[in-house]
């Protein structure tokens, strides 16, 4: 079941169309990646989901019904542009922001005590935010995002501005949250993190959604039947061994081994390639080249742009 879905969202800013008929569906308990180049409209979509701005057209659904204003209390949002009141004490500030999300003061205090001790930052409670390092502030920021145990978490470019240690911590926490049953949307142009974390993605470019679905399915769809083979040299020209329908994309050397990337015709599989090569060479390894999300991203975006 989808925890959240948006259908045919359109948003126009004066002459600039930020979103054009964009629909997404976020299955419950999944991690959903919102991808796209800068300026594609990701942040606008996220702000619409958070009801910070209203769409010109389109509908939003949460838990199977229309999204309501009070649903903000079930959503946790870590914006791309994020920060804290510099002059305010950490604990007081966390209490304030938790209360704005609908928690009572007592409940907020109880949960904050738990999270602060969990992160080992209890001693920061009475310190002003400006006294903390950037990394420390990011931890506080993360706690504030999840303190009200939202059913839906939205991270806009969560890894930008975080140092590598905190990126790892954040990844771990995101996976923990998923395990605990939360549904997570995050937007990024960092493709590596998509492959690591996301179950589903939607790719947005120029205000339109150009691709969406399950990450594994997409990868399968975009795989090109290409293999990388490493073998011992044997003098003969590789081209002469393979039929014309086998396309050699790249050849190279790695120490004593030769490497070749070969795209197979649609009706051929890895066994066919092995059968052709084995009489003439010692095969050390054979790997399928699975397109990275980055490749797919670039390919889809350039294809769409070429089509325009």
């Amino acid at each position, binding site marked *: 079941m989808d925890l959240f879905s948006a259908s045919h969202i359109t948003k126009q*800013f*004066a002459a600039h169309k930020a979103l054009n008929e964009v629909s997404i569906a976020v299955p419950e308990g999944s991690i959903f990646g919102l991808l796209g180049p800068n300026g594609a409209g990701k942040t606008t979509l996220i702000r619409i989901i958070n009801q*910070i701005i209203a769409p010109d057209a389109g509908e939003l659904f949460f838990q199977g019904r229309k999204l309501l204003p009070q649903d903000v209390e079930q959503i946790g949002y870590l*914006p791309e542009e994020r*920060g*804290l009141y510099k002059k305010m004490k950490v604990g007081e500030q966390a209490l304030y922001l938790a209360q*704005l999300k609908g928690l009572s003061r007592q409940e907020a205090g109880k949960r904050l005590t738990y999270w602060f001790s969990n992160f080992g930052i209890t001693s920061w409670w009475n310190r002003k935010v400006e006294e903390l390092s950037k990394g420390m502030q990011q931890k506080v920021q993360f706690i*504030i995002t999840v303190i009200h145990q939202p059913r839906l978490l939205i991270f806009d470019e969560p890894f930008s501005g975080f140092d590598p240690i905190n990126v790892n911590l954040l990844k771990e926490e995101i996976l923990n949250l998923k395990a605990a049953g939360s549904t997570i949307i995050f937007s990024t142009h960092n493709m590596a993190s998509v492959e690591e974390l996301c179950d589903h993605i939607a790719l947005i470019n120029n205000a339109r959604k150009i691709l969406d679905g399950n990450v594994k399915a997409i990868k399968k769809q975009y795989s090109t039947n290409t293999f990388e083979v490493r073998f011992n040299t044997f003098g003969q020209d590789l081209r002469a061994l393979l039929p014309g329908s086998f396309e050699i994309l790249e050849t190279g050397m790695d120490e004593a081994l030769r490497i070749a990337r070969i795209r197979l015709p649609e009706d051929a599989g890895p066994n066919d390639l092995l059968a052709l090569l084995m009489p003439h060479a010692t095969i050390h390894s054979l790997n399928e080249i699975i397109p990275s999300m980055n490749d797919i991203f670039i390919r889809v975006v350039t294809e769409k742009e070429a089509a325009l």
Partner: protein
Amino acid sequence: MKKILLIIRREYLTRVKKRSFIIMTILGPLLMAGIVIVPIYIATTTNETKQIGVIDETGFFYQKFKDSDNIRFHYLETTIWSAKETFGNSDDYALLYIPKTEIALPTNAILYAGTQVNINVKSYIRNVMSKRIEDLKLEAQLRDLTREDATPIDVNDLLRSIKTSVDLSTIKIGPDGQEEKSYTEVSMVLAFFGAILIYFFIFMFGSQVMRGVIEEKTSRIVEVIISSVKPFQLMMGKIVGVALVGLTQFALWVVLTFIIITAVTSTFTGTTLSETTTQQMMESPAGSFDPGQVIRMAPESQPEEGVNEVMAAINSIDFPVMIGSFLFFFLFGYLMYAALFAAIGGAVDSEADTQQFILPLTAPLILAIVVAQFIVQEPNGPMAFWLSLVPFTSPVVMMIRIPFGVPYYEVALSMALLLLGFLVTTWLAAKIYRTGILMYGKKISYKELWKWLKY
């Protein structure tokens, strides 16, 4: 609603806990008290013998004013007009005039003098007069009680019924016997005081709202907050929170100034004065502040030099209108400007970028203060009339006009226009604000703002 209260609470508490707030709260009253106390101090330290001529048309006070070390009274048998004419040539320090009353006992007196009258002299005269009148009242009551058909009366009621306060006003006269003081002068003081107060409040606390918005924007917390509350709630919460800070500071200033002045004057002057003022301090409900109350209390206490004149003239001023409209223009003038200040804060990235917007915004206010001196000269002229209708200038200009008397319908029209102005500007400001707070790193032009209004 609960969330807007949370916002107001935070805005209020973080500001009143600031060191700058505490310093301002202490410095303000010291300054104010200094302005009031220094002239009193000077007035009380001159100790030469003073002669005062008395014209008592009532005859009740004959020989009641006793000479003391430095005051001598002598009774004049002329009319007040001729006495005033000859006053300039006499050695008299002041001329006490107790006008004839038809039915009631005299409780009014006027003290004509060429200079500021020493406060001890005034409190002495007031004491003698009220004591004499209380005696007369007591006599009359006792006469009533000794009659056959007299109804018994509680002694406390009796004491209360005879309690008398004397209204002693001071009027400055020149050497030629012309009265220099007129009601206009007092109206002018009230006019400038009200106008400057509003001007100052709008400027100081309006820009605090703006800085608060800029702080939220530059610290990048604003988007976190508006994922929980509507931008409009955040804006209004801030505006109201800052207004409460301003009112708190204002109330503390009034109370502290009053305390300091009372404490200092009571050490300088006789017991009478300190008794009456401390008594009033007790009577005024602790903790609650009402600007009207201080003024209402004043006629009886008259602790400060010059208050008498103000009080005499104040009777000619329409008080409910004055105080009511002061509160209205004060509040809505602030609210309207604060919303616009918030919009500026939302539109820019740093305080340095605000100049191009602040100047046009505050120009009407500055204009109003600049033309104030012309308006007091012609409080019902066309310039005064139009500027007191335009919402951007009306809070200041109307406050200048009201002490001189303004037709009710004009005040009502001005209020209606200000209310309308407040609603329209807040609506527009909210649009700019909610777009601006999400825009980073963009130099904002007026053209850009115009576009935001249409989003």
